[in-house]
């Protein structure tokens, strides 16, 4: 692969302790100026991939290239070119928003006066002026996320990594955060690599998407390309309890590309849901099975996710990343209250 993109992953592998393979031969390229979404269930390898790309973790195999620089040989130079917004909240609660930004600028070797200027500018851009001199621990979730975005931008990176950036935010906070990211991309041409649990965000914000499962990329493309791969709409037909199998009754109907039986329900992929519904209801009725419910779904990334990972995006075992984030926020609050 020619390493000309902003972010290039070539056959990246990460094995922990010689046993657990978290990332298993991941390859992709993100052109400059794009917003690239990296989706996958918990434990799929998203954060490990971000860590390898952002010079936080040494790959077991393969290579990562950022803005033309091989990460494993140029960790420091790569860190100067990228900004990383981590999954967990990393703002220093005992420092004000302004102090957080000034300290962050100092860690990139930026002079005190320049750091002060950049902090002031970013505070205004992120609409944090009123809270700039308040301790970050008093910020709301949305304000804290905006502060962390500002911290990630203080050294003016060319590439921004966002690892679950809107976790735990309300819809207004999520919309606000993405508004800032889009404005940033439009003004600076910055490349953005984002992992997210919110498929609607990925659908509307990302130019291209890759889905990772069990450490491997299982699908990639633009949101529309991925949805087109599903073959159109998905109609769910629910028959009366105990009715005989209607799969072979539905399958020959016009426009049907696949039928999946799940108990008394049939998940039918078709070119047009609206055309299929009356045909399917009538066919089932004639075959002796009463239809008790029908739903038509336009293809969404949820469907794409289900198709390629075999799992509903939210049907995951154990606490989700959101649960963990909320839990950590509570622990942090309790500890800060005591310290």
């Amino acid at each position, binding site marked *: 692969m020619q390493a000309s993109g902003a972010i290039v992953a070539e056959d990246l592998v990460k094995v922990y302790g010689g046993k657990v393979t978290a990332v298993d031969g991941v390859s992709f390229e993100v052109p400059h100026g794009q917003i690239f979404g990296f989706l996958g269930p918990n434990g799929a390898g998203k954060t490990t991939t971000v860590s390898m790309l*952002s*010079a*936080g*973790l*040494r790959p077991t195999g393969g290579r990562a290239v950022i803005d033309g620089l091989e*990460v*494993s040989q140029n*960790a*420091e*130079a790569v*860190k*100067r070119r990228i900004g*990383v917004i*981590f999954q*967990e*909240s*990393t703002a*220093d609660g*005992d*420092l004000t928003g302004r*102090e957080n930004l*000034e*300290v*962050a*600028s*100092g*860690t*990139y*070797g*930026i*002079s*005190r006066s320049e*750091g002060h200027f950049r902090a002031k500018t970013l505070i205004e851009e992120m609409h944090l002026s009123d809270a700039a001199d308040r*301790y970050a621990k008093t910020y709301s979730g949305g304000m804290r996320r905006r502060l962390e975005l500002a*911290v990630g931008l203080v050294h003016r990176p060319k590439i921004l990594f966002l690892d679950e950036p809107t976790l735990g935010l309300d819809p207004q906070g999520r919309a606000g955060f993405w508004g800032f990211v889009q404005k940033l991309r439009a003004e600076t041409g910055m490349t953005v690599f984002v992992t997210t649990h919110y498929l609607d965000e990925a659908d509307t914000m990302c130019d291209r998407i890759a889905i990772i499962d069990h450490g491997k990329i299982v699908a990639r493309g633009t949101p529309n390309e991925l949805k087109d791969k599903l073959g159109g709409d998905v109609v769910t037909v629910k028959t009366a309890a105990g009715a005989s199998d209607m799969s072979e009754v539905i399958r020959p109907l016009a426009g049907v590309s696949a039928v999946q039986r799940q108990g008394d329900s049939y998940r039918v992929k078709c070119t047009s849901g609206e055309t299929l519904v009356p045909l399917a209801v009538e066919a089932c009725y004639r075959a002796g099975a009463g239809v008790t419910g029908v739903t038509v779904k336009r293809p969404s990334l949820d469907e794409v996710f289900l198709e390629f990972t075999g799992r509903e995006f939210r049907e995951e075992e154990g606490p989700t990343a959101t649960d963990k984030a909320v839990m*950590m926020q509570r622990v*942090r609050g309790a*500890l800060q209250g005591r*310290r």
Partner: protein
Amino acid sequence: MLRELSALTRREFLKLARNPQAIFTSLLLPLLYLLLFGQGFNVKPPPDLLQYYFRGAPNYYSYFAAGMVGFVSVTSTLFIGANVIFDKLFGIFKRTRGTPAPSAAVFGSRLIAGAAQPILLAFFVLGLAILFSHVPGLTGLDVTASVGVVGAVEVLLAIVLLALMFATVFLTIGILLDVPQVYFAVVNLINLPVLLTSDALYPWGSMPPWLQTTSQFNPISLAVNVLREVFFGSGTYPYAPGVYLAGLLAWTVVLVGIAIVLVRRALRPLD
């Protein structure tokens, strides 16, 4: 490097200043020791053994007050490593490591802030103990020798070296470990034996010969010997303060050297 060090050190001092409760309790502990333990445990040996018992100090309190400097050097640096572990748990350490700031700046900033506390506390302890000697009804630190500029510099060096040494040790342990409970278990395994094998608190004359001998290699004893010799005269000491300072410097250099190797390995990029 200097800008990164300066920014991170500023952060450490800001965090310290934002927790007045922590400052208050760190002052309260030595105050209580000086006020209760020192006054209550005022051992009085036979007059002819006084010099031997307290290595030239006029009373136990004066002997103990110098030892308290060693005591606070350990107790006030204990939490330095714990703060690193909490910063790891909250992702703050990860964010710092995500920047190009060199590991020397990450370590150095915490070391400067961490060592500043025991240094300031040492002067608080000495000042308070001297003040007590002027309060009717209380015993205090009676400096019986003429200190002079050289003596003052020797005391300052002993306090700074001891603070740097313990701050380095506990900071390194905090960087190497990830679990607070494990950290405190390891730290307790270090601080108690180090304190209890020194002559910081025991009257010298009451220590068994084997402990008198081994304690002379203990870094706390080395620092406290410098203070006592400067404050009470060289009569009972076989060596000049400079010799004890050299021993303390050797401890500091060896431990800092080990810390550099371990910390560089733990904080190397891409791990």
